[in-house]
């Protein structure tokens, strides 16, 4: 691997799913994301995250950890942190039922060429969980977030 030659845009969980085909486990959220104007959607997870302020703090902690984690920091070397912060916040908000639209690329596109392995993905999940502990999210809220994002693993690794 030659990490320094990798082109990095936003290598973490930062893409919108174009279709709903992989979203059986998060059907309601995915439907909400895919059907514009869907009147009522469950935003309880977004509220549990603490709304815009909570999401902002969570993403800040997450990026702190990722940039400091020698196992995956090289993936972020060429990324614009402000850009990443905005896109991940949008995604967290949208996927948790909040009133946001994710404007980034799809998960597969966003990670294309990065050749992220399973070990790197696992390291990220650990950092993500630690970040949720940093901002003192209740354990059950952490689990709901993991449930939303865990199924994206195949769209992130080996791209």
């Amino acid at each position: 691997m030659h990490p320094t030659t990798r082109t990095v845009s936003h290598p973490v969980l930062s893409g919108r799913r174009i279709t709903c085909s992989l979203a059986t486990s998060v059907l309601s959220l995915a439907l909400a994301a895919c059907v514009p104007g869907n009147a009522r959607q469950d935003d309880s997870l977004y509220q549990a995250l603490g709304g815009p302020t909570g999401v902002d703090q969570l993403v800040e902690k997450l990026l702190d950890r990722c940039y400091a984690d020698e196992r995956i920091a090289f993936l972020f070397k060429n990324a614009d942190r402000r850009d990443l912060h905005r896109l991940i916040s949008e995604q967290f908000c949208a996927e948790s039922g909040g009133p946001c639209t994710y404007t980034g690329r799809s998960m597969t596109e966003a990670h294309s060429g990065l050749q992220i392995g399973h070990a790197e993905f696992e390291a990220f999940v650990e950092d993500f969980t630690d970040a949720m502990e940093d901002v003192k999210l209740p354990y059950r809220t952490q689990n709901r977030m993991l449930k939303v994002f865990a199924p994206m693993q195949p769209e992130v690794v080996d791209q």
Partner: protein
Amino acid sequence: MTAPCRPATRSYPIAAAVALCALASAPATDCTAGTRQLATGGASTIEGSAGGGMVPWAVIAGYGSREEIGGSAFATRTDTGDYRMDVQGFALGFHNRVEFSFARQQLDLVKLGPALGLPGAHLDQDVIGLKVKLAGDVLYTPYPQIAFGVQYKRQREFLIPSVVGAKDDSGVDLYLSATKVFLAGAGGFNAFVNGTLRSTEANETGLLGFGGPDGSRHLEFEGSIGALFTRRFAVGMEYRTKSGNLEGLPEDDWKDIFVAWFPNRHFTVVLAYVDLGTVATLEDQTGWYVSVEGGL
């Protein structure tokens, strides 16, 4: 997170696991743990394979992910008063795909020994295991992780089993396991479910040898269910059907409830209350199980 690997107890198999660390092909070179999430390596079963306490799961031992090698080593004691079983062993997980395991069991006949005029008598068995993940991932696929396993079991001292009618001093168990973690699946807590189908010739899991007058190979079902109540604490229960081949020594199903503590990837403690029913004529064998494990 670069906690150095270190032995968790002084049990010799753990030294083997730590030695393995030096060989591990992890990308980090400073002997860090594997990167899979906490508790996804399960615990060590009494037969050495990764799983609950008495039921093997589809998970691969240790915390190595696809690019890594992991492993675990353990020491376990089960005590029902009439029986006491000590097990030591280790398991190596290769690339989250293949698991090799070894367990050495010694069952002390605390009550039967003296009654038979054999004070200090014990039953001894080694179990060599191989497990291959066939499909899925406990966390990341909508369907369960599925694995196929083989356990080669060999008596180290066949005298007592042969006297009670066992035909062979060794046997092979084949099993198929499916294991799934349901994130936020139990009121927001992460739940896990495992089912294992086992084909075996064993009497009392092999401690009383293999085959006998009542037949030989038979099919058993084993299940585990539980939840993590924090990132580091799991509670669960297990059930394992059993039916031996020995005349006059009917077997009962085994069950247990357990608490597992995963303070970090290097250390796991499991406590359980076990109900083994009637074991070799002694009724109501209930007691405690404790397992201390080191992992990478």
